[in-house]
């Protein structure tokens, strides 16, 4: 492994706007439903009305016979499962024989207009025999419960039992051991763009083009080939503008395959636009989880051991479940120095929409428990929350107990920066009644070091083209879903080449032209694709420098590129403008395409224990934040007055975008902490609208002051690591710690809604009354 030399950044320090920002602010950006669909049929899906049932009869003949209906598809049309992990694909695009959650697709139609499609759906005759349905982990795990999947005893998708170090000893030598239970509600990505897919099948050429909201075009491509039994060379997957993802679109989704099935059956184009309710039903987000956490600590705050049990209510199918339950344990590590850890994880099948990956995948709820308990133990020991964290810092480079690499580590600086910015030392304990400060730390991977599909290929590829026009085109499969990855690619290429940013054009995520990319997940793009982009740009630069050297009759080593000028660096006047160099380079070979790659080396790919690849990464981002709250003890309403967040992203390739990502992730953590929650009523979503799924509005959202910390990762592109997930997990515990600071009440459940605060306050009043009567009596 060769460490990247640090490149002196020439991008103006506040950062640059998104390269596709103008399209977005003018309304010209075309998202899936904005694509030309004048001649497209309208797709609609029939969904299960029950949580668990056997399909006794499904008769689509009346729907098929309806004038205007062009295609009808059912589970019979696709006997192939799809999913994420090759070992856990247990889901059909449309149910076969059995339905396992309310809202599961059963059949679909394509018709000439929406009314006809709706009517056709209503003409489908469906007879179901209800089976016992389980809406909590506890019910599903109870002895004798009906199994959702016959081979999964106890309705457990996966049990994980990991032990590192001697935790028994660790607890024995601790001065304080405390155990607490925490519970975090299920939340949803709630990206503002509802799900949609446009599929076009040409029966004459037998080619399929699918444009979708996907973050993972490559996986979609694979699953389309699998489920439609098509040669993958006849499929093209294109990503238009995508209105946010946060993990919602990080696995292939049922409606995408259904739309393609309909398009083929209809021999034409089908537009599937899901409603907001259906978008919620598609789900794949952060599961409800129960944590039992025990920490052992010395008097000075040093952690001696930790044990953690996590139960995740996973929903009806596998999805990313195994990965999520592994992450929840693996990412207990990598933030602090913990000498011994025991982890027990249980991923449970329930009759609810399948959970999946969501920003901070797997780490958020356990981090919440951990940071809350750390604070409570600090209080027990009379230590400052910052001091407790500082007592447990890692020292890079190092490897964690579970064999994760830590190559750069800016947590100490993050702590210093938010402590200072928030005025913590002067203010803590001195705020007026009802106000409080709380803090917490968090981290996240910069890309999973081991890809899900092992192909032996590089983990990232970027092609860079240069032709007679002097324009440089970067071709990447990486899906820009609003996080700004195309802008990052453009900057990386421009910086490396020493050319102007607007000379670069990025073409992204079209399987017909761009190299394959594994997708926008686990914050892998900046690290991996950024490195591949730099690699490609270097190769192009070598070609250009060679050409310039030939022309200037110098040695390539003597050529220097400044601005867009190539010159001999010994100070002679001889120099060539970019256009001349391009001309020279194209002589003989013509248009140039170079390919850059990046691969995470085996030593970065995690421990040898089962599941050891999950959590492995080339670099962790680190974050610390301070949250200031005010609590209205009459109504239980909590308001966040301000947030100070610091994140170590290695190096900010585009500081403006890094700030935006940190603010967005902190704020999303705030939603989960304060008001977001999915609630099922007899298996049906009580939350499937933006009135009931309460993401914060501009009115009550706080100012979020960001500090960027740069620890210069030795392997990151220009030293960069991820910036958009790491800060999320810190908000919920910082909030709960701030509430404890303000009103002396420890809340163990998320979200901290006013009714939960009121319940706790009332309980306390009752207890106080009880103790005072006891005192009187004695």
């Amino acid at each position, binding site marked *: 492994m060769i460490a990247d030399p640090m490149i002196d950044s020439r991008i103006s320090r506040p950062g640059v706007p998104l390269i596709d920002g103008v399209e977005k602010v003018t309304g010209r950006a075309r998202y899936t439903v904005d694509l030309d669909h004048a001649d497209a049929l309208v797709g*609609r*899906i029939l*969904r*299960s*009305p*029950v949580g668990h049932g056997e399909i006794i009869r499904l008769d689509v003949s009346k729907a098929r016979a309806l004038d205007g209906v062009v295609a009808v598809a059912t589970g019979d049309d696709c006997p192939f499962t799809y999913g994420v992990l090759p070992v856990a694909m247990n889901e059909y695009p449309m149910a076969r024989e059995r339905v396992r959650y*309310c809202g599961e697709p059963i059949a679909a139609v394509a018709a000439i207009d*929406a*009314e006809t*499609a*709706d009517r056709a759906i209503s003409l489908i005759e469906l007879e179901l025999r209800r089976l016992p349905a389980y809406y909590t982990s506890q019910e599903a795990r109870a002895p004798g419960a009906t199994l959702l999947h016959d081979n999964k005893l106890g309705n457990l998708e996966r049990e994980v039992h990991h032990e590192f170090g001697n935790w028994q000893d660790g607890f024995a030598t601790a001065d304080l051991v405390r155990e607490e239970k925490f519970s975090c509600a299920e939340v949803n990505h709630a990206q503002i763009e509802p799900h949609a897919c446009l599929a076009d099948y040409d029966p004459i050429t037998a080619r399929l083009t699918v444009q979708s909201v996907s973050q993972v075009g490559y996986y979609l491509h694979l699953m389309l080939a699998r489920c439609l039994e098509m040669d993958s060379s006849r499929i093209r997957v294109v990503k238009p503008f995508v209105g946010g993802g946060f993990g919602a679109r990080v696995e292939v989704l049922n409606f995408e395959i259904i739309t393609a099935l309909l398009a083929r059956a209809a021999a034409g184009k089908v537009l599937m636009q*899901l*409603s*907001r*309710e*259906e978008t919620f039903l598609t789900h794949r987000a952060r599961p409800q989880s129960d944590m039992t956490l025990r920490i052992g600590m010395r008097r000075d705050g040093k952690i001696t051991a930790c044990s953690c049990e996590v139960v995740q209510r996973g929903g009806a199918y596998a999805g990313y479940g195994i990965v999520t339950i592994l992450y929840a344990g693996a990412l207990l590590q990598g933030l602090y120095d913990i000498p011994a850890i025991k982890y027990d994880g249980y991923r449970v099948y329930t009759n609810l929409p399948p959970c999946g990956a969501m920003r901070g995948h797997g780490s958020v709820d356990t981090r919440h428990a951990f940071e809350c308990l750390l604070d409570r133990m600090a209080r027990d020991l009379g230590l400052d929350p910052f001091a407790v964290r500082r007592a447990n810092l890692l020292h890079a480079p190092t490897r964690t107990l579970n064999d994760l690499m830590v190559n750069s580590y800016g947590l100490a600086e993050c702590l210093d920066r938010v402590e200072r910015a928030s005025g913590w030392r002067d203010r803590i304990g001195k705020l007026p009644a009802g106000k409080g400060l709380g803090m917490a730390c968090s981290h996240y991977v910069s890309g999973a070091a081991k890809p899900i599909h092992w192909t032996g290929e590089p983990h990232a590829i970027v092609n860079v083209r240069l032709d007679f026009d002097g324009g440089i085109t970067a071709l990447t499969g990486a899906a820009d879903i609003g996080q700004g990855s195309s802008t990052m690619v453009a900057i990386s290429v421009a910086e490396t080449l020493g050319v102007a940013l607007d000379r670069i054009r990025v073409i992204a995520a079209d399987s017909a032209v761009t190299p394959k990319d594994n997708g926008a997940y686990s914050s892998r793009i900046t690290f991996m694709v950024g490195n591949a982009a730099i690699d490609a740009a270097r190769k192009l630069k070598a070609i250009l420098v060679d050409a310039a050297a030939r022309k200037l009759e110098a040695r390539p080593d003597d050529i220097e590129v400044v601005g867009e000028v190539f010159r001999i660096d010994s100070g002679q006047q001889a120099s060539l403008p970019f256009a001349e160099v391009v001309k020279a380079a194209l002589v003989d070979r013509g248009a140039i395409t170079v390919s850059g790659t990046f691969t995470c080396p085996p030593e970065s790919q995690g421990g040898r224990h089962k599941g050891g690849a999950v959590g492995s990464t080339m670099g962790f981002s680190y974050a610390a934040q301070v949250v200031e709250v005010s609590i209205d003890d*009459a*109504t*239980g*309403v909590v308001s966040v007055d301000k947030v100070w967040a610091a994140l170590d992203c290695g190096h900010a390739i585009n500081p403006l975008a890094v700030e935006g990502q940190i603010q967005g992730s902190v704020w999303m953590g705030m939603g989960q902490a*304060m*008001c977001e*929650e999915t*609630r099922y*009523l*007899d298996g*049906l*979503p*009580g*939350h*499937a*609208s*933006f*009135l*009931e799924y*309460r993401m*914060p*509005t*501009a*009115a*009550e959202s706080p100012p979020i002051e960001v500090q960027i910390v740069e620890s210069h990762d030795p392997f990151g592109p220009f030293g960069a690591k991820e910036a958009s997930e790491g800060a999320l997990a810190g908000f919920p515990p910082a909030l709960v710690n701030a509430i404890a600071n303000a009103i002396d009440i420890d809340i163990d459940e998320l979200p901290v*809604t*006013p*009714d939960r605060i*009121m*319940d706790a306050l*009332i309980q306390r009043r009752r207890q106080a009354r009880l103790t005072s009567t006891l005192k009187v009596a004695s």
Partner: protein
Amino acid sequence: MSTSLGELRLVQPSTVKEAVAARFEHPGSRFIAGGTDLIVNMRRGIIRSDLLVDLSGIDELTEITTDGLDVTIGAGVTLAALAHNSEIAGRYRALAQAAEAIAAPGHRVIGTVGGNLCLDTRCIYYNQSEWWRSAHAYCLKNRGDVCHVAPQGKRCHAAFAGDLAPALLVLGAEIDIASAQGVRRIPLSELYVEDGKAHLALADGELLVALHLPLNPPPSGYAKVRLRGAIDFPLAGVAVALAASGPNVNSLRIALTGTNSRPFLVAGTEPFAGRPIDEKLLHELDRLVQKQVQPMRTTIASANYRRIAAAALTRRLVKKLFAEGAA
């Protein structure tokens, strides 16, 4: 799952008389004012109608006028116009505060006073899509015969959650209702019935034309609890009008929304007249409110919380108004 509208016709009368006649001629038709509640409900399939009578072209509904006796507010006045009217803000603070706390600015620009007062009641088993409700089994309020909130009972407990009504109730509003027979005037409180399925005492086709407010009301205020700073309907909303004389209460009126199937004036506040605002009075008030609200499991937030919050808001508003009056 469609969320577009079914076959529909729109008629656009320019007088109250024509509007009432149009409704009368077409059973099953509906008035549409701003449409911010109606269109949402129609897209969900909980209200079905193939003809809408548009009230937005009726000029006489959009006026706010004052004569020597009272202030008249047309039913078609928008929430934004109401909130920005300086006379309203000065004299009827509860009303302006309530208007300002409704939904979000975009809704307030088109949503009207009439639509807010005639708002449908809400329930998590009701404000759902057609697919949802049919999957769950329709409930008593809509096509079914059991209430999922209180299966033993015979009535619907869906909550009225309009913000304006309690403010208007404490301010002593009366309303004009037009029908084919002419116009009648009733106290606003008589518009509402404690039944989530039929909470309005309006005969089919009756139109709310305007409301009247007495000119010299006592100081008033409105507050609501909700999870977010905008958009959300009140989990509980409280309006208070309080006149003080010296250290004592002179008159006190309290009205609530969000907790019951109707907005209502809290009964039994008369005896507070002549008493000082002390802990004892506040405690009694607390008991009074908690006794009269009947929140049920119609929202995701717990019913008990809505009860406690209603009482807490009342207490705070009373204290605040009293302090302002004394100052």
